[in-house]
């Protein structure tokens, strides 16, 4: 029944796919690529975003395989939970856990960090901001948002609402920064939505503590990348409070105040 020619044995197919893709960025954990998964003779092919958790030479191979597999699975499950709960996250397009590869929808747009003029981004997509120094940056802040038809205030509310939806689903992002929020370029076919990306550090938890720490991490990210951003972050929290409801916000908000005083590690052990 099975096809007669043997499969190409030289290289795992997912690694061949990656070697034919465009590199986008690299971190300590993973490399990311832009690939085409399903070539088609009709119509233009659709790009996907591929995150490849490469083999770590410094770990025992068995441990490495297990950790990588678990992390790819964890990230995919968090995305799935968000999708079902109506959080705007990229859809999953392919998973090859044994090679450590997760493919998701490609979002053509800008990170919120770039839109707020947050200086050098390790993704390198706002290099043009760097060249002309501070004055131009101030100008660009308003200009970069214009094509999206959004004010800064609206953008902040969108951030708060998305995080609130995610926390209502008991998903904790674990690495909320303005670089991990994407605004797709506007298109006539759909509304402008804010996407949360990179669930590599995410986990599920219903605990107030974890949600408060998640918000605290974002607050710190805001203050370190965008100067004078406390007013902006207040808008984020307003929208968050509105979405989760008064009762839940009472608990999380109070805990956020505690976390601000002590930092994100509750226990001083270790």
């Amino acid at each position, binding site marked *: *029944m*099975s*096809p*007669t*020619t043997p*499969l*190409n044995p030289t*290289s*795992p*197919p*997912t690694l*061949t*796919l990656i070697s*034919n893709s465009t590199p986008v960025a690299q971190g300590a954990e993973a490399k990311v690529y832009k690939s085409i*998964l*399903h*070539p*088609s*003779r*009709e119509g233009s092919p*659709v790009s996907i975003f591929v995150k490849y958790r490469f083999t770590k030479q410094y770990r025992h191979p068995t441990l490495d395989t297990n950790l990588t*597999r678990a992390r*790819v*699975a964890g990230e*995919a*499950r968090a*995305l*799935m939970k968000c*999708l*079902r*709960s*109506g959080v705007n996250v990229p*859809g*999953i*397009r*392919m*998973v*090859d*856990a*044994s090679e450590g590869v997760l*493919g998701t*929808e490609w979002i053509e747009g800008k990170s919120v960090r770039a839109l707020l003029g947050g200086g050098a981004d390790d993704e390198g997509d706002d290099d043009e901001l760097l060249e002309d120094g501070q004055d131009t940056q101030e100008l660009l802040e308003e200009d970069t948002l214009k094509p999206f038809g959004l004010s800064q205030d609206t953008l902040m509310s969108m951030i708060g609402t998305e995080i609130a*939806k995610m926390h*209502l*689903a008991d998903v904790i992002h674990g690495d909320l920064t303005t670089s991990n929020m994407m605004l797709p370029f506007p298109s006539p076919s*759909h509304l402008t939505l804010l996407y949360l990306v990179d669930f590599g550090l995410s986990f599920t938890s219903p605990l107030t503590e974890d949600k408060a720490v998640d918000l605290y991490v974002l607050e710190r990210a805001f203050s370190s990348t965008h100067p004078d951003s406390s007013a902006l972050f207040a808008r984020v929290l307003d929208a968050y409070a509105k979405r989760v409801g008064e009762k839940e916000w009472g608990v999380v908000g109070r805990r956020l105040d505690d976390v601000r005083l002590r930092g994100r590690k509750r226990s001083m052990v270790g």
Partner: protein
Amino acid sequence: MDSYQLPQFNRDIHIALLKNVSNASQIRSRIIIAASIPSPQGDAEREAINFAFIDPRLLTSALHIKTAIYQALLNEHQASLRTKSVHSEILWALNPNNNITEAIRRFGVSDSCTSLLIVRISSPDLNDVEAKIKSIVSGDIVPLSQLETLTDWATIKKYYKLNGEPVLEEVAGDTQRERAVLDNIVVSSVAMKTVMQ
């Protein structure tokens, strides 16, 4: 008919959507009989119907079936097929749980099918796939883009357990957006099936 190559698997993929299919029950019994003829006598018959026959009413988009094909190919390459062939693996990949019989009953050809989506995964040297399909199925080949007109959204929601999910409340009333959201979730479930549990 849509054909494309996946060089990383050394495979050609052929997808044909057929409407006005009149012999669905005959195809179904032919598959069952072919499986029970012992080798080598049955080999020719098995080769003749060596396709995946899928009920297009349960597909949300071309991406949905292509994702299932891709995951089936990955399973085949990693020697982790759950079913007996890469074609049945496509049906397994489409079904959200691990029950093979249920996958074939739900997503495979049934006697009531009047449209069919046919997939052939082959080595690059296979020719005349369209002629081979026409010799088995009596129906009209239509562009794959017509898939969306056949989709049975209510059954999809039921099978993929999407009723009552918060996302549907959010997009309630906007049919076009609801379908886009459903398609995205369904494609995502197929893509992540191997790491779901």
